Protein backbone atom coordinates (compact mmCIF):
# COMPACT_ATOMS: atom_id res chain seq x y z
CA UNK A 1 0.00 0.00 0.00
CA UNK A 2 1.51 3.30 -1.11
CA UNK A 3 1.71 6.08 1.41
CA UNK A 4 -0.77 8.84 0.60
CA UNK A 5 0.53 12.41 0.42
CA UNK A 6 -0.69 15.03 2.88
CA UNK A 7 -1.34 17.29 -0.12
CA UNK A 8 -1.43 16.04 -3.72
CA UNK A 9 1.28 17.21 -6.10
CA UNK A 10 -0.24 19.50 -8.73
CA UNK A 11 1.74 19.44 -11.96
CA UNK A 12 2.19 22.87 -13.47
CA UNK A 13 3.75 23.69 -16.77
CA UNK A 14 5.30 26.76 -18.25
CA UNK A 15 5.65 27.96 -21.81
CA UNK A 16 8.00 30.64 -23.06
CA UNK A 17 7.63 33.49 -25.47
CA UNK A 18 10.75 35.31 -26.59
CA UNK A 19 10.95 39.08 -26.47
CA UNK A 20 13.63 41.02 -28.32
CA UNK A 21 15.59 43.65 -26.42
CA UNK A 22 17.39 45.40 -29.33
CA UNK A 23 20.66 44.94 -27.43
CA UNK A 24 23.53 43.46 -29.40
CA UNK A 25 27.19 42.60 -28.83
CA UNK A 26 29.96 42.11 -31.34
CA UNK A 27 32.91 41.86 -28.95
CA UNK A 28 33.74 40.47 -25.52
CA UNK A 29 33.62 43.90 -23.95
CA UNK A 30 30.18 44.60 -25.39
CA UNK A 31 29.02 41.18 -24.20
CA UNK A 32 30.22 41.94 -20.68
CA UNK A 33 28.66 45.40 -20.61
CA UNK A 34 25.29 44.01 -21.68
CA UNK A 35 25.36 41.05 -19.28
CA UNK A 36 25.82 43.59 -16.47
CA UNK A 37 22.86 45.69 -17.58
CA UNK A 38 20.16 43.39 -18.99
CA UNK A 39 17.22 42.14 -16.93
CA UNK A 40 17.32 38.81 -15.13
CA UNK A 41 14.91 37.38 -17.69
CA UNK A 42 17.58 37.88 -20.35
CA UNK A 43 20.26 36.10 -18.31
CA UNK A 44 17.78 33.32 -17.64
CA UNK A 45 16.99 32.98 -21.34
CA UNK A 46 20.59 32.70 -22.47
CA UNK A 47 21.62 30.25 -19.77
CA UNK A 48 18.63 27.96 -20.20
CA UNK A 49 17.19 28.19 -23.69
CA UNK A 50 19.64 25.62 -25.06
CA UNK A 51 18.14 23.03 -22.74
CA UNK A 52 14.72 23.60 -24.20
CA UNK A 53 15.66 24.07 -27.82
CA UNK A 54 17.86 20.97 -27.90
CA UNK A 55 15.80 18.57 -25.82
CA UNK A 56 17.14 15.40 -27.34
CA UNK A 57 20.71 16.43 -27.94
CA UNK A 58 23.32 14.89 -25.71
CA UNK A 59 25.51 16.37 -24.48
CA UNK A 60 23.69 19.62 -25.09
CA UNK A 61 25.67 22.80 -25.67
CA UNK A 62 25.99 24.60 -22.34
CA UNK A 63 24.67 28.12 -22.74
CA UNK A 64 24.36 30.79 -25.42
CA UNK A 65 27.22 32.90 -24.04
CA UNK A 66 29.69 30.01 -24.02
CA UNK A 67 28.61 28.87 -27.48
CA UNK A 68 28.96 32.36 -29.01
CA UNK A 69 32.29 33.13 -27.33
CA UNK A 70 33.70 29.82 -28.59
CA UNK A 71 32.15 29.51 -32.03
CA UNK A 72 32.07 33.13 -33.15
CA UNK A 73 34.87 34.87 -31.24
CA UNK A 74 37.08 31.78 -31.15
CA UNK A 75 37.87 32.25 -27.44
CA UNK A 76 37.93 28.57 -26.56
CA UNK A 77 39.37 28.94 -23.07
CA UNK A 78 36.75 31.46 -21.98
CA UNK A 79 34.06 29.37 -23.69
CA UNK A 80 35.10 26.41 -21.58
CA UNK A 81 35.10 28.52 -18.41
CA UNK A 82 31.61 29.83 -19.15
CA UNK A 83 30.34 26.37 -20.07
CA UNK A 84 31.60 24.90 -16.84
CA UNK A 85 29.90 27.43 -14.57
CA UNK A 86 28.02 25.21 -12.15
CA UNK A 87 24.55 26.70 -12.66
CA UNK A 88 22.92 24.34 -10.15
CA UNK A 89 24.92 25.98 -7.34
CA UNK A 90 23.21 29.33 -7.82
CA UNK A 91 19.96 30.07 -6.12
CA UNK A 92 19.29 33.37 -7.89
CA UNK A 93 19.78 34.89 -11.31
CA UNK A 94 21.65 37.74 -9.62
CA UNK A 95 24.30 35.36 -8.30
CA UNK A 96 24.57 33.62 -11.67
CA UNK A 97 24.96 36.96 -13.44
CA UNK A 98 27.79 37.91 -11.03
CA UNK A 99 29.62 34.70 -11.82
CA UNK A 100 29.26 35.29 -15.56
CA UNK A 101 30.55 38.86 -15.36
CA UNK A 102 33.45 37.90 -13.08
CA UNK A 103 34.50 35.15 -15.47
CA UNK A 104 34.42 37.36 -18.57
CA UNK A 105 35.99 40.39 -16.84
CA UNK A 106 38.84 38.30 -15.49
CA UNK A 107 39.51 36.87 -18.96
CA UNK A 108 39.57 40.38 -20.47
CA UNK A 109 41.96 41.60 -17.75
CA UNK A 110 44.25 38.68 -18.40
CA UNK A 111 44.27 39.38 -22.14
CA UNK A 112 45.09 43.03 -21.49
CA UNK A 113 47.79 42.23 -18.91
CA UNK A 114 49.62 39.62 -20.93
CA UNK A 115 48.99 41.11 -24.36
CA UNK A 116 48.11 37.60 -25.48
CA UNK A 117 45.13 36.95 -27.69
CA UNK A 118 43.27 39.41 -29.81
CA UNK A 119 39.95 41.12 -29.17
CA UNK A 120 37.91 39.84 -32.11
CA UNK A 121 34.84 41.58 -33.46
CA UNK A 122 32.02 39.44 -34.82
CA UNK A 123 30.52 40.27 -38.20
CA UNK A 124 27.09 41.91 -38.12
CA UNK A 125 25.62 38.63 -39.29
CA UNK A 126 27.04 36.82 -36.28
CA UNK A 127 26.60 39.39 -33.54
CA UNK A 128 25.03 38.31 -30.25
CA UNK A 129 21.40 39.37 -29.82
CA UNK A 130 20.03 39.64 -26.30
CA UNK A 131 16.60 38.09 -25.95
CA UNK A 132 14.43 37.61 -22.89
CA UNK A 133 12.07 34.83 -21.90
CA UNK A 134 8.52 35.61 -20.87
CA UNK A 135 7.24 32.61 -18.88
CA UNK A 136 3.57 31.66 -18.78
CA UNK A 137 2.84 29.32 -15.89
CA UNK A 138 -0.37 27.31 -15.57
CA UNK A 139 -1.65 24.08 -14.00
CA UNK A 140 -1.96 20.88 -16.02
CA UNK A 141 -4.89 18.48 -15.36
CA UNK A 142 -2.49 16.07 -13.62
CA UNK A 143 -2.39 15.42 -9.85
CA UNK A 144 -0.49 12.80 -7.86
CA UNK A 145 -1.67 11.52 -4.47
CA UNK A 146 1.15 9.04 -3.91
CA UNK A 147 4.52 8.05 -5.31
CA UNK A 148 3.11 5.53 -7.81
CA UNK A 149 0.72 8.09 -9.27
CA UNK A 150 3.56 10.60 -9.28
CA UNK A 151 5.83 8.39 -11.37
CA UNK A 152 3.00 7.55 -13.78
CA UNK A 153 2.27 11.24 -14.36
CA UNK A 154 5.98 11.95 -14.86
CA UNK A 155 5.84 9.64 -17.87
CA UNK A 156 2.92 11.58 -19.38
CA UNK A 157 3.47 15.29 -18.77
CA UNK A 158 5.24 17.43 -21.33
CA UNK A 159 8.91 18.11 -20.93
CA UNK A 160 7.86 21.72 -20.21
CA UNK A 161 6.25 20.62 -16.95
CA UNK A 162 9.34 18.75 -15.77
CA UNK A 163 11.44 21.72 -16.83
CA UNK A 164 9.29 24.08 -14.77
CA UNK A 165 9.44 22.07 -11.57
CA UNK A 166 13.16 21.32 -11.79
CA UNK A 167 14.79 24.44 -13.29
CA UNK A 168 12.43 27.35 -13.24
CA UNK A 169 11.05 26.87 -9.72
CA UNK A 170 14.52 26.68 -8.24
CA UNK A 171 16.42 29.43 -10.03
CA UNK A 172 13.87 31.86 -11.35
CA UNK A 173 11.37 31.62 -8.53
CA UNK A 174 14.28 31.29 -6.07
CA UNK A 175 13.07 28.21 -4.19
CA UNK A 176 15.81 26.41 -2.25
CA UNK A 177 15.18 23.00 -3.81
CA UNK A 178 13.34 21.63 -6.84
CA UNK A 179 9.57 21.11 -6.43
CA UNK A 180 9.73 17.31 -6.71
CA UNK A 181 12.21 16.96 -3.85
CA UNK A 182 10.26 19.42 -1.72
CA UNK A 183 6.97 17.54 -2.13
CA UNK A 184 8.51 14.08 -1.60
CA UNK A 185 10.18 15.30 1.57
CA UNK A 186 7.35 17.31 3.11
CA UNK A 187 4.30 15.41 1.89
CA UNK A 188 5.49 11.81 1.66
CA UNK A 189 8.15 11.92 4.40
CA UNK A 190 10.73 10.22 2.18
CA UNK A 191 13.83 12.33 2.87
CA UNK A 192 16.28 9.86 1.31
CA UNK A 193 14.51 9.95 -2.05
CA UNK A 194 14.03 13.72 -1.80
CA UNK A 195 17.74 14.13 -1.16
CA UNK A 196 18.64 11.86 -4.06
CA UNK A 197 16.57 13.95 -6.51
CA UNK A 198 17.87 17.20 -5.04
CA UNK A 199 21.44 16.03 -5.63
CA UNK A 200 20.91 15.45 -9.34
CA UNK A 201 22.65 18.03 -11.51
CA UNK A 202 19.90 18.55 -14.10
CA UNK A 203 22.22 20.62 -16.30
CA UNK A 204 24.19 17.52 -17.22
CA UNK A 205 21.24 15.74 -18.83
CA UNK A 206 19.13 16.51 -21.85
CA UNK A 207 15.49 16.92 -20.85
CA UNK A 208 14.32 13.48 -21.97
CA UNK A 209 17.33 11.99 -20.18
CA UNK A 210 16.43 13.93 -17.05
CA UNK A 211 12.87 12.60 -17.17
CA UNK A 212 14.20 9.05 -17.49
CA UNK A 213 16.69 9.57 -14.63
CA UNK A 214 14.03 10.86 -12.22
CA UNK A 215 11.64 8.03 -13.11
CA UNK A 216 14.44 5.52 -12.66
CA UNK A 217 15.41 6.88 -9.26
CA UNK A 218 11.83 6.71 -8.03
CA UNK A 219 11.23 3.21 -9.41
CA UNK A 220 14.41 1.98 -7.72
CA UNK A 221 13.31 3.55 -4.46
CA UNK A 222 9.90 1.86 -4.70
CA UNK A 223 11.52 -1.51 -5.46
CA UNK A 224 14.00 -1.27 -2.59
CA UNK A 225 11.35 -0.22 -0.10
CA UNK A 226 8.83 -2.87 -1.06
CA UNK A 227 11.24 -5.72 -0.22
Amino acid sequence: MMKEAKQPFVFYTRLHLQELTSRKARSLKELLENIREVSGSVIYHHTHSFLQRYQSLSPEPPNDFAYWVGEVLGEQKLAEELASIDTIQFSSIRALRNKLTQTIASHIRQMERTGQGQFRVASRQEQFHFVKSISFIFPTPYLAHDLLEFVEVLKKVTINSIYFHVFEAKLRLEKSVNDFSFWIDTNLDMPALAEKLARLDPYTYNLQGLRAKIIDSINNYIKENSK
Partner: protein
Amino acid sequence: MKLADYEPIVGPNIIEELKSLARRLKGKLVRNINSTAVGGGVAEILMRLVPLLNELGLDVRWDVIKGEERFFSITKKFHNMLHGKKVKLLPNEIELFLKNGEDNLKNMDLSGDILFIHDPQPIVLVKKKQFQKKSKWLWRCHIDVTEPNEQIWSFLKTFIEQYDASVFSSPNFAQQLKIRQFLIAPSIDPLSDKNKDLSQNEIADVLNRLKIAADKPIITQVSRFDYLKDPLGVIDVYRLVKKYTDCQLILAGGTATDDPESALVLNKVTEKAQGDPDIHILALPPTSDIEINALQRASTVILQKSVREGFALTVTEALWKAKPVVASAVGGIPLQIKHEFSGLLSRTTEGTAYWVKQLLNSPDYAQNLGRVGKEHVRQNFLLTRHLREYLLLFLALYHHSDIVNI
Protein backbone atom coordinates in the same frame (compact mmCIF):
# COMPACT_ATOMS: atom_id res chain seq x y z
CA MET B 1 -6.06 19.62 -41.54
CA LYS B 2 -7.27 19.05 -37.99
CA LEU B 3 -5.25 19.35 -34.79
CA ALA B 4 -5.57 15.60 -34.30
CA ASP B 5 -3.64 15.07 -37.56
CA TYR B 6 -0.56 16.56 -35.90
CA GLU B 7 -0.78 14.38 -32.81
CA PRO B 8 1.24 11.44 -34.21
CA ILE B 9 4.03 13.87 -35.12
CA VAL B 10 4.34 16.02 -32.00
CA GLY B 11 2.69 13.84 -29.35
CA PRO B 12 -0.67 14.11 -27.56
CA ASN B 13 0.64 16.24 -24.68
CA ILE B 14 1.67 19.08 -27.01
CA ILE B 15 -1.88 19.17 -28.43
CA GLU B 16 -3.27 19.08 -24.90
CA GLU B 17 -1.07 22.06 -23.97
CA LEU B 18 -2.42 24.01 -26.94
CA LYS B 19 -6.00 23.31 -25.86
CA SER B 20 -5.21 24.36 -22.33
CA LEU B 21 -3.72 27.68 -23.50
CA ALA B 22 -6.57 28.31 -25.91
CA ARG B 23 -9.17 27.91 -23.15
CA ARG B 24 -7.76 31.12 -21.67
CA LEU B 25 -8.55 32.95 -24.91
CA LYS B 26 -11.86 31.30 -25.67
CA GLY B 27 -14.21 33.46 -27.71
CA LYS B 28 -11.68 36.25 -28.33
CA LEU B 29 -12.16 37.74 -31.76
CA VAL B 30 -8.80 37.93 -33.53
CA ARG B 31 -8.89 39.64 -36.91
CA ASN B 32 -5.92 39.03 -39.23
CA ILE B 33 -5.43 41.52 -42.02
CA ASN B 34 -2.95 41.26 -44.86
CA SER B 35 -2.75 42.19 -48.52
CA THR B 36 -3.44 38.94 -50.36
CA ALA B 37 -5.54 35.82 -49.92
CA VAL B 38 -3.38 33.63 -52.15
CA GLY B 39 0.29 33.41 -53.02
CA GLY B 40 3.21 34.37 -50.86
CA GLY B 41 4.38 33.16 -47.49
CA VAL B 42 1.97 35.22 -45.35
CA ALA B 43 -1.16 33.87 -47.04
CA GLU B 44 0.27 30.36 -46.91
CA ILE B 45 0.81 30.47 -43.16
CA LEU B 46 -2.56 32.13 -42.44
CA MET B 47 -4.31 29.52 -44.55
CA ARG B 48 -2.94 26.85 -42.23
CA LEU B 49 -3.06 28.62 -38.85
CA VAL B 50 -6.49 30.29 -38.99
CA PRO B 51 -8.56 27.04 -39.17
CA LEU B 52 -6.52 25.48 -36.36
CA LEU B 53 -6.97 28.54 -34.12
CA ASN B 54 -10.72 28.37 -34.77
CA GLU B 55 -10.73 24.67 -33.95
CA LEU B 56 -9.14 25.65 -30.61
CA GLY B 57 -12.15 27.81 -29.79
CA LEU B 58 -10.98 31.31 -30.72
CA ASP B 59 -12.96 33.38 -33.19
CA VAL B 60 -10.23 34.03 -35.73
CA ARG B 61 -10.97 35.83 -38.99
CA TRP B 62 -8.87 36.83 -41.93
CA ASP B 63 -9.55 39.85 -44.11
CA VAL B 64 -7.66 41.29 -47.04
CA ILE B 65 -7.22 44.99 -47.88
CA LYS B 66 -8.12 46.30 -51.31
CA GLY B 67 -5.68 48.14 -53.52
CA GLU B 68 -5.03 48.99 -57.13
CA GLU B 69 -2.04 47.87 -59.16
CA ARG B 70 -0.22 51.14 -58.56
CA PHE B 71 -0.61 50.70 -54.78
CA PHE B 72 0.95 47.25 -54.93
CA SER B 73 3.84 48.43 -57.07
CA ILE B 74 4.54 51.06 -54.38
CA THR B 75 4.38 48.48 -51.59
CA LYS B 76 6.72 46.26 -53.64
CA LYS B 77 9.11 49.21 -53.58
CA PHE B 78 8.62 49.39 -49.78
CA HIS B 79 9.53 45.73 -49.60
CA ASN B 80 12.77 46.24 -51.53
CA MET B 81 13.63 49.28 -49.43
CA LEU B 82 13.06 47.30 -46.23
CA HIS B 83 15.61 44.84 -47.64
CA GLY B 84 17.99 47.82 -47.82
CA LYS B 85 17.62 48.93 -51.45
CA LYS B 86 18.92 52.47 -51.87
CA VAL B 87 16.11 54.20 -53.73
CA LYS B 88 14.00 57.22 -52.78
CA LEU B 89 10.37 57.17 -51.83
CA LEU B 90 8.59 59.94 -53.73
CA PRO B 91 5.98 62.29 -52.20
CA ASN B 92 3.25 61.11 -54.60
CA GLU B 93 3.97 57.49 -53.67
CA ILE B 94 3.56 58.29 -49.97
CA GLU B 95 0.35 60.16 -50.77
CA LEU B 96 -1.09 57.22 -52.72
CA PHE B 97 -0.11 54.77 -49.97
CA LEU B 98 -1.84 56.89 -47.31
CA LYS B 99 -4.91 57.36 -49.50
CA ASN B 100 -5.24 53.58 -49.85
CA GLY B 101 -5.08 53.31 -46.05
CA GLU B 102 -7.88 55.86 -45.66
CA ASP B 103 -10.06 54.02 -48.22
CA ASN B 104 -9.62 50.71 -46.44
CA LEU B 105 -10.27 52.36 -43.06
CA LYS B 106 -13.62 53.54 -44.38
CA ASN B 107 -14.65 50.23 -45.91
CA MET B 108 -13.36 47.52 -43.58
CA ASP B 109 -14.88 45.99 -40.48
CA LEU B 110 -12.14 46.49 -37.89
CA SER B 111 -14.01 45.23 -34.85
CA GLY B 112 -12.31 42.64 -32.66
CA ASP B 113 -10.38 42.03 -29.46
CA ILE B 114 -7.08 41.68 -31.28
CA LEU B 115 -6.26 43.25 -34.65
CA PHE B 116 -3.36 41.34 -36.14
CA ILE B 117 -1.91 43.31 -39.04
CA HIS B 118 0.62 41.64 -41.32
CA ASP B 119 3.42 43.52 -43.11
CA PRO B 120 3.50 47.14 -44.32
CA GLN B 121 0.61 47.16 -46.83
CA PRO B 122 -2.22 47.47 -44.24
CA ILE B 123 -0.11 49.23 -41.57
CA VAL B 124 -2.10 52.50 -41.75
CA LEU B 125 -5.22 50.75 -40.36
CA VAL B 126 -3.82 51.33 -36.84
CA LYS B 127 -5.26 54.84 -37.09
CA LYS B 128 -8.53 53.23 -36.00
CA LYS B 129 -6.97 52.24 -32.66
CA GLN B 130 -7.72 55.58 -31.01
CA PHE B 131 -11.43 54.90 -31.44
CA GLN B 132 -11.28 51.33 -30.09
CA LYS B 133 -9.92 51.63 -26.59
CA LYS B 134 -10.46 47.95 -25.75
CA SER B 135 -8.85 46.42 -28.83
CA LYS B 136 -5.22 45.34 -28.91
CA TRP B 137 -3.23 45.96 -32.07
CA LEU B 138 -0.34 43.81 -33.25
CA TRP B 139 1.97 44.39 -36.20
CA ARG B 140 3.68 41.31 -37.63
CA CYS B 141 6.70 41.94 -39.83
CA HIS B 142 7.42 38.96 -42.08
CA ILE B 143 10.17 40.79 -43.96
CA ASP B 144 13.95 40.74 -43.42
CA VAL B 145 14.66 44.16 -41.92
CA THR B 146 18.26 43.56 -40.87
CA GLU B 147 19.41 46.78 -42.52
CA PRO B 148 16.38 48.66 -43.80
CA ASN B 149 16.59 51.78 -45.91
CA GLU B 150 16.41 54.63 -43.41
CA GLN B 151 13.72 56.61 -45.27
CA ILE B 152 11.20 53.77 -45.41
CA TRP B 153 11.89 52.68 -41.85
CA SER B 154 11.38 56.19 -40.41
CA PHE B 155 8.15 56.49 -42.37
CA LEU B 156 6.77 53.13 -41.20
CA LYS B 157 8.00 53.63 -37.65
CA THR B 158 5.47 56.42 -37.10
CA PHE B 159 2.75 53.79 -37.62
CA ILE B 160 4.51 50.83 -35.97
CA GLU B 161 4.88 52.69 -32.69
CA GLN B 162 1.11 53.21 -32.52
CA TYR B 163 0.65 49.43 -32.16
CA ASP B 164 0.62 47.65 -28.79
CA ALA B 165 3.35 45.24 -29.87
CA SER B 166 5.30 44.03 -32.89
CA VAL B 167 6.52 40.61 -34.00
CA PHE B 168 9.68 39.79 -35.95
CA SER B 169 10.97 36.48 -37.33
CA SER B 170 14.62 36.63 -36.34
CA PRO B 171 16.74 38.35 -33.66
CA ASN B 172 18.69 40.04 -36.50
CA PHE B 173 15.57 42.01 -37.35
CA ALA B 174 15.23 43.67 -33.93
CA GLN B 175 14.87 47.45 -34.10
CA GLN B 176 14.91 50.38 -31.70
CA LEU B 177 11.19 50.77 -31.00
CA LYS B 178 9.09 52.19 -28.18
CA ILE B 179 6.80 49.15 -28.23
CA ARG B 180 7.45 45.51 -27.27
CA GLN B 181 9.04 43.33 -29.94
CA PHE B 182 8.40 39.61 -29.83
CA LEU B 183 10.38 36.98 -31.62
CA ILE B 184 8.36 34.32 -33.41
CA ALA B 185 10.18 32.23 -35.96
CA PRO B 186 8.35 30.94 -39.04
CA SER B 187 7.45 27.28 -39.26
CA ILE B 188 6.84 24.48 -41.71
CA ASP B 189 3.78 22.29 -41.94
CA PRO B 190 4.87 18.64 -41.69
CA LEU B 191 1.68 17.57 -43.47
CA SER B 192 2.02 19.85 -46.50
CA ASP B 193 3.01 18.44 -49.90
CA LYS B 194 6.46 19.96 -49.48
CA ASN B 195 7.13 18.18 -46.21
CA LYS B 196 4.92 15.11 -45.84
CA ASP B 197 6.46 11.64 -45.87
CA LEU B 198 6.93 10.12 -49.32
CA SER B 199 7.38 6.48 -50.20
CA GLN B 200 10.52 5.27 -51.97
CA ASN B 201 8.37 4.69 -55.06
CA GLU B 202 7.10 8.27 -55.07
CA ILE B 203 10.66 9.57 -54.74
CA ALA B 204 11.88 7.28 -57.54
CA ASP B 205 9.01 8.43 -59.79
CA VAL B 206 10.03 12.07 -59.42
CA LEU B 207 13.70 11.28 -60.10
CA ASN B 208 12.70 9.33 -63.24
CA ARG B 209 10.53 12.16 -64.46
CA LEU B 210 13.35 14.65 -63.92
CA LYS B 211 15.85 12.24 -65.54
CA ILE B 212 18.09 11.94 -62.50
CA ALA B 213 19.72 8.59 -61.78
CA ALA B 214 20.31 7.86 -58.12
CA ASP B 215 23.53 6.02 -58.95
CA LYS B 216 25.89 8.40 -57.16
CA PRO B 217 25.64 10.74 -54.16
CA ILE B 218 23.43 13.79 -54.71
CA ILE B 219 24.31 17.27 -53.45
CA THR B 220 21.31 19.60 -53.66
CA GLN B 221 20.52 23.25 -53.17
CA VAL B 222 16.88 24.30 -53.37
CA SER B 223 16.37 28.03 -53.82
CA ARG B 224 15.32 30.56 -56.39
CA PHE B 225 17.93 31.62 -58.95
CA ASP B 226 19.25 34.69 -57.23
CA TYR B 227 22.81 35.95 -56.62
CA LEU B 228 22.00 36.13 -52.89
CA LYS B 229 21.68 32.34 -52.88
CA ASP B 230 25.08 32.00 -54.61
CA PRO B 231 24.21 29.22 -57.09
CA LEU B 232 27.46 29.87 -58.97
CA GLY B 233 29.38 29.31 -55.73
CA VAL B 234 27.47 26.05 -55.27
CA ILE B 235 28.87 24.82 -58.61
CA ASP B 236 32.37 25.73 -57.38
CA VAL B 237 31.76 23.71 -54.22
CA TYR B 238 30.57 20.73 -56.27
CA ARG B 239 33.68 20.88 -58.48
CA LEU B 240 35.99 20.94 -55.46
CA VAL B 241 34.20 17.90 -54.03
CA LYS B 242 34.03 16.07 -57.38
CA LYS B 243 37.84 15.98 -57.56
CA TYR B 244 37.79 13.39 -54.79
CA THR B 245 34.30 11.87 -54.70
CA ASP B 246 32.13 11.08 -57.68
CA CYS B 247 28.86 12.87 -57.11
CA GLN B 248 26.12 14.87 -58.82
CA LEU B 249 24.63 18.29 -58.17
CA ILE B 250 21.02 19.44 -58.27
CA LEU B 251 20.21 23.14 -58.32
CA ALA B 252 16.43 23.34 -58.06
CA GLY B 253 14.41 26.49 -57.80
CA GLY B 254 11.33 28.32 -58.90
CA THR B 255 11.24 30.39 -62.04
CA ALA B 256 10.17 33.96 -61.49
CA THR B 257 9.05 35.24 -64.86
CA ASP B 258 8.46 38.73 -63.44
CA ASP B 259 12.02 38.99 -62.14
CA PRO B 260 14.51 39.76 -64.93
CA GLU B 261 17.46 39.16 -62.63
CA SER B 262 16.28 35.63 -61.94
CA ALA B 263 16.42 34.78 -65.67
CA LEU B 264 19.88 36.31 -65.90
CA VAL B 265 21.18 34.25 -62.97
CA LEU B 266 19.60 31.10 -64.41
CA ASN B 267 21.44 31.75 -67.71
CA LYS B 268 24.75 32.26 -65.94
CA VAL B 269 24.27 29.07 -63.94
CA THR B 270 23.38 27.07 -67.06
CA GLU B 271 26.41 28.48 -68.84
CA LYS B 272 28.73 27.60 -65.97
CA ALA B 273 27.36 24.05 -65.77
CA GLN B 274 27.66 23.39 -69.49
CA GLY B 275 29.24 20.12 -70.48
CA ASP B 276 28.80 18.43 -67.13
CA PRO B 277 26.00 15.80 -67.27
CA ASP B 278 26.17 15.46 -63.48
CA ILE B 279 24.87 18.97 -62.88
CA HIS B 280 21.07 19.10 -63.00
CA ILE B 281 19.58 22.58 -63.19
CA LEU B 282 15.87 22.42 -62.55
CA ALA B 283 13.76 25.53 -63.02
CA LEU B 284 10.50 24.24 -61.60
CA PRO B 285 7.00 25.77 -61.72
CA PRO B 286 5.45 27.01 -58.45
CA THR B 287 3.27 23.90 -58.23
CA SER B 288 6.28 21.63 -57.69
CA ASP B 289 6.02 21.00 -53.95
CA ILE B 290 6.03 17.20 -54.28
CA GLU B 291 9.02 17.38 -56.64
CA ILE B 292 10.99 19.57 -54.20
CA ASN B 293 10.06 17.22 -51.37
CA ALA B 294 11.27 14.18 -53.35
CA LEU B 295 14.51 15.87 -54.43
CA GLN B 296 15.34 16.80 -50.84
CA ARG B 297 14.58 13.26 -49.68
CA ALA B 298 16.72 11.75 -52.47
CA SER B 299 19.73 13.93 -51.58
CA THR B 300 22.83 12.80 -49.73
CA VAL B 301 23.80 16.31 -48.59
CA ILE B 302 21.85 19.55 -48.79
CA LEU B 303 23.48 22.96 -49.22
CA GLN B 304 22.25 26.45 -48.53
CA LYS B 305 25.19 28.59 -49.58
CA SER B 306 23.38 31.92 -49.30
CA VAL B 307 25.10 35.27 -49.03
CA ARG B 308 22.06 36.69 -47.26
CA GLU B 309 18.95 35.01 -45.87
CA GLY B 310 15.69 35.76 -44.13
CA PHE B 311 14.86 32.76 -41.99
CA ALA B 312 15.75 30.15 -44.65
CA LEU B 313 12.79 27.78 -44.53
CA THR B 314 14.51 25.62 -47.17
CA VAL B 315 16.98 24.71 -44.42
CA THR B 316 14.10 23.84 -42.06
CA GLU B 317 12.59 21.62 -44.76
CA ALA B 318 15.88 19.81 -45.33
CA LEU B 319 16.47 19.28 -41.61
CA TRP B 320 12.93 17.92 -41.22
CA LYS B 321 13.83 15.26 -43.78
CA ALA B 322 16.76 14.25 -41.53
CA LYS B 323 19.29 15.37 -44.11
CA PRO B 324 22.79 16.59 -43.24
CA VAL B 325 22.91 20.28 -44.17
CA VAL B 326 25.88 22.55 -44.86
CA ALA B 327 24.75 26.16 -44.81
CA SER B 328 26.14 29.68 -44.56
CA ALA B 329 26.07 31.27 -41.12
CA VAL B 330 23.72 34.07 -42.21
CA GLY B 331 20.19 35.29 -41.34
CA GLY B 332 18.08 32.73 -39.50
CA ILE B 333 20.36 29.79 -40.36
CA PRO B 334 22.36 29.82 -37.09
CA LEU B 335 19.02 29.60 -35.22
CA GLN B 336 18.42 26.30 -36.95
CA ILE B 337 21.92 24.89 -37.16
CA LYS B 338 24.29 24.73 -34.26
CA HIS B 339 27.61 23.84 -35.86
CA GLU B 340 28.49 20.15 -35.55
CA PHE B 341 25.29 19.45 -33.58
CA SER B 342 22.37 19.80 -35.98
CA GLY B 343 24.26 20.54 -39.18
CA LEU B 344 27.37 22.36 -40.37
CA LEU B 345 27.94 26.08 -40.82
CA SER B 346 30.38 27.45 -43.35
CA ARG B 347 31.59 30.85 -44.48
CA THR B 348 33.63 30.14 -47.63
CA THR B 349 33.44 28.05 -50.80
CA GLU B 350 36.45 25.97 -49.73
CA GLY B 351 35.00 25.47 -46.25
CA THR B 352 31.68 24.36 -47.67
CA ALA B 353 33.44 21.86 -49.95
CA TYR B 354 35.49 20.57 -47.01
CA TRP B 355 32.35 19.83 -44.97
CA VAL B 356 30.53 18.22 -47.92
CA LYS B 357 33.51 15.87 -48.45
CA GLN B 358 33.46 14.97 -44.75
CA LEU B 359 29.76 14.16 -44.91
CA LEU B 360 30.03 12.08 -48.08
CA ASN B 361 32.86 10.06 -46.55
CA SER B 362 31.36 9.69 -43.06
CA PRO B 363 27.79 8.49 -43.53
CA ASP B 364 27.33 7.67 -39.83
CA TYR B 365 28.28 11.19 -38.83
CA ALA B 366 26.01 12.59 -41.55
CA GLN B 367 23.14 10.43 -40.34
CA ASN B 368 23.61 11.58 -36.76
CA LEU B 369 23.57 15.26 -37.74
CA GLY B 370 20.40 14.62 -39.73
CA ARG B 371 18.74 12.87 -36.81
CA VAL B 372 19.48 15.73 -34.40
CA GLY B 373 18.45 18.30 -37.02
CA LYS B 374 15.08 16.62 -37.45
CA GLU B 375 14.40 16.57 -33.71
CA HIS B 376 15.42 20.22 -33.48
CA VAL B 377 12.83 21.08 -36.12
CA ARG B 378 10.20 18.90 -34.41
CA GLN B 379 10.67 20.82 -31.17
CA ASN B 380 11.10 24.32 -32.57
CA PHE B 381 9.98 24.92 -36.13
CA LEU B 382 6.77 23.02 -36.82
CA LEU B 383 3.36 24.64 -37.26
CA THR B 384 2.25 23.55 -33.76
CA ARG B 385 5.02 25.65 -32.16
CA HIS B 386 3.93 28.59 -34.28
CA LEU B 387 0.36 28.06 -33.10
CA ARG B 388 1.47 27.91 -29.46
CA GLU B 389 3.48 31.12 -29.78
CA TYR B 390 0.59 32.97 -31.38
CA LEU B 391 -1.59 31.96 -28.42
CA LEU B 392 1.13 33.14 -26.00
CA LEU B 393 1.49 36.35 -27.97
CA PHE B 394 -2.24 37.06 -27.64
CA LEU B 395 -2.02 36.38 -23.90
CA ALA B 396 1.06 38.62 -23.58
CA LEU B 397 -1.02 41.55 -24.77
CA TYR B 398 -2.98 41.34 -21.53
CA HIS B 399 0.02 40.82 -19.19
CA HIS B 400 3.13 42.90 -18.80
CA SER B 401 5.46 41.03 -16.46
CA ASP B 402 8.19 38.56 -17.38
CA ILE B 403 6.61 35.77 -15.32
CA VAL B 404 2.89 35.40 -15.93
CA ASN B 405 0.58 33.11 -13.97
CA ILE B 406 -2.43 32.29 -16.10
